[in-house]
């Protein structure tokens, strides 16, 4: 087993463990904590794929910014206990179960029947593709249009956030 492989197995095991623990926790803050651990493992997995920039962005945005937001929301809604959360679930829970079964079937199909095994080799230029320089070069030439569209997406998000928060204030 190479070094990269052993790192992959450790990270994969920890990320599955943290994902399961996140679901099993009673207190939402504990769940959020396991989610951070999970994000870190995913960041590590990006690193094993030589995607350095993505790895650091993942940690910065998800483990940092999104987590702060989650904790704020937990406090804002005062989700002290899971019981109150469950009252709101109702029919959505059954949909959730149905979707996760579908996802599981899909994953099993990919692992068992498809040609996924043909892609286990990493591209020789992977190390170059993962750098910021390369990413910038491609993002601002080849994928220029999607990049500019992103700004509209962010604009829409800003407006949405303001409207949501303001509505709560009026109530």
């Amino acid at each position, binding site marked *: 087993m190479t070094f990269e492989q052993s790192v992959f197995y450790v990270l994969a095991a920890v990320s599955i463990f943290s994902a399961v623990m996140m679901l099993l926790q009673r*207190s939402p*803050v*504990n769940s959020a*904590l396991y989610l*951070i651990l999970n994000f870190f493992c995913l960041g590590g997995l990006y690193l094993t794929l030589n995607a*350095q*920039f993505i790895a*650091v*962005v993942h*940690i*910065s945005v998800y*483990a*940092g*910014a999104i*987590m*702060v937001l989650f*904790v*704020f929301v937990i*406090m804002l809604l005062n989700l002290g206990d899971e019981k109150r959360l469950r009252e709101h679930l109702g029919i959505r829970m059954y949909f959730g179960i149905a979707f996760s079964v579908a996802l599981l079937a899909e994953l099993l199909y990919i692992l068992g029947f498809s040609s996924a095994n043909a892609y286990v080799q990493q591209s020789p230029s992977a190390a170059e593709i993962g*750098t*910021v320089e390369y990413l910038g070069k491609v993002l601002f030439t080849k994928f220029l249009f999607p990049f500019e569209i992103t700004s509209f997406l962010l604009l829409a998000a800003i407006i949405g956030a303001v409207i949501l928060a303001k509505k709560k204030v009026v109530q």
Partner: protein
Amino acid sequence: MENILQLLSNPIVSAVLMALAPLLFILPYALVTIYIEMKMAAHIQNRLAYMQTGWHGTLQPFADILKLLQKEDIIPTAASKFLFILAPYLVFVGTYSSFAVLPFSSAFIGSNIDLGIFFLIAVSSLVVVGLLMSGWASNNKWSLFGALRSAAQIVSYEIPSALAILGVVMVSGTMSTQEMTHFQDGGIGQWIIFGGNLPLWQKLSLIPFMIILFLIYLVSSMAEVNRTPFDIPEAESELVQGYNTEYSGMKFAIFYLAEYANLFLVSAVVVILFFGGWTSPFGTFLSGPVWGAFWFVTKGMLFVCLNIWLRWTLPRLRVDQLMYVSWKVLTPFALLCVLAIGLIVVM
């Protein structure tokens, strides 16, 4: 002797030594800085501060550590025990791992990754999560208020500070802290605050924007370490100790250590970004790996002292003023500077 050299050249052993080295800096640094801070504060306010323990109270920081070690470790019954213990770890680990990308000299850097300065931004947001955890876990009103305010403040000031760093990245063309320092090698005129290593007319037109970016970074870094005038999270007169009110003994000491380590960290980043990192101000005179470490620490400590000076001179800001400064003053100015720098460099 030969065995030792052989052992040192082993990659694993040298990596472990590299990982331990910043600790050997942080611990004595914290002791010295606590002393300097108390003395400076006292003299600014016309007091004497420590005089009893040792010559002019020089042994006081050691006495403080001994005292903290003998204190009882209290975990309130209302607190969430696991999170309560975990929070200081998160804060300290976040701060300590950022030291990996500080280039102490041309020969020493924990890890010379390409993303250097960007990694720093990413990890500093982890400290916020640690603070929030401590406030939530304590289940104390002061702690929770302190943590919320602290998180809101740090998060708000991260935008202008990231934009200020961006301006420097544009000028130097790299995110690696070591390369950024090499870019400024060659004396005081080559430092990025003076336009770096660019043609003369570009340098001259860059200077005003670099000075503005420097001030923006300085202000937001002060906010990010939660010190006066930005110390609303631990405003003693209204919030007791803020997020670490319930912490005692060594857990409190870890928060304290992380706070001082963070102070050096942001000062060191100012030095790397604008004041030439480990390069000597006299060009090749007094330069080299050992002098490099000397210059780096000296410049860093100068900014630490500046921080202390400002802390004991300025009054505390109100929350609304704090948000005003970050979102309505620093952010638009930083954005304008970035655009102007882009125009100058691209022309």
